């Protein structure tokens, strides 16, 4: 039979957001969390992902509503920027809390 502690731990694990759990997506979310918005070149330069990978991860994050593309102007020219949505911000903080709890509850930690 499982101890109450290990049941708790299992709960934390199962509640972890799998979208954000992917390292590349976590990294994208982390960069967007410290900024108001950033363009794709900035994210590509900072994360070191290939353009194709960055595109597919951004599509995934956009499809669940964590990231939004916004049209902005840079030097009077239209410029696509990426922004973390309010939902994405909540999910990101929630993910970090859950991960912290899950790691703290690990047997032997």
């Amino acid at each position, binding site marked *: 039979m499982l101890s109450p502690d290990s049941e708790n731990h299992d709960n934390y694990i199962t509640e972890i957001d799998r979208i954000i759990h992917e390292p590349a997506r976590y990294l994208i979310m982390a960069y967007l969390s410290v900024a108001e918005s*950033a363009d794709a070149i900035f994210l590509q330069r900072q994360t070191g992902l290939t353009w194709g990978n960055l595109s597919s991860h951004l599509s995934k994050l956009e499809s669940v509503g964590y990231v939004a593309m916004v049209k902005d102007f840079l030097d009077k020219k239209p410029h696509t920027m990426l922004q973390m949505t309010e939902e994405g911000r909540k999910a990101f903080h929630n993910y970090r809390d859950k991960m912290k709890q899950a790691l703290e509850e690990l047997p032997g930690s």
Partner: protein
Amino acid sequence: MQENVDLKQITKKVYMSYFQDGLWDILLGIYLIGWGISIWQDLVAVMGGMWVAIYFTVLAIKRMVVYPRSGYIKLNEARKQQMRMVILGAGLFLLGFAVLGIFAFNTRPAWLDDYFMFLLITMIAVVVGILGYWWRVTRWYIYAMIVFAGAVAQQWLKMPLELGFFIPGGVFSMYGIGLLIGFLRKYPKPNREEQDVIS
């Protein structure tokens, strides 16, 4: 891909990315060289106009050369506000000191007269150090020390005053140019097809 996903590190990296092109170093260097020229050739009135022209040139280079290569980020409003206040505070501090010096030219006490340029250059060093602290750019601490060394050298080692500006200004500009060249090599302009994958 980067291993480090510590948020504090990422925040630091994001802010540091703003200074990786060396343009602010070049700006500071040219600013000091400008001071040196204005003292050397007695052209104090030229300084203000030159400073504004260089500042806008740097912003234009940022837009035309830097952002297409390194990407563009909008900082959080709180941090943007903090940066504006630091720049404004540093500018007002220097302006106030300069105005005080001009208006008190005939009335200031003898000791202030003797140490005026030392105090002025020390103030510049303090402002450079504060900017380094707020912007988290540690190399600016070294810049502050070099500026201060110039103040000491012109006061006690009888080095010509303008050299106290030319030498640090030259060092910072050269280092900034080195950073800019490194930046341009590291970040070639991405081609259109690559970017189109995203938008």
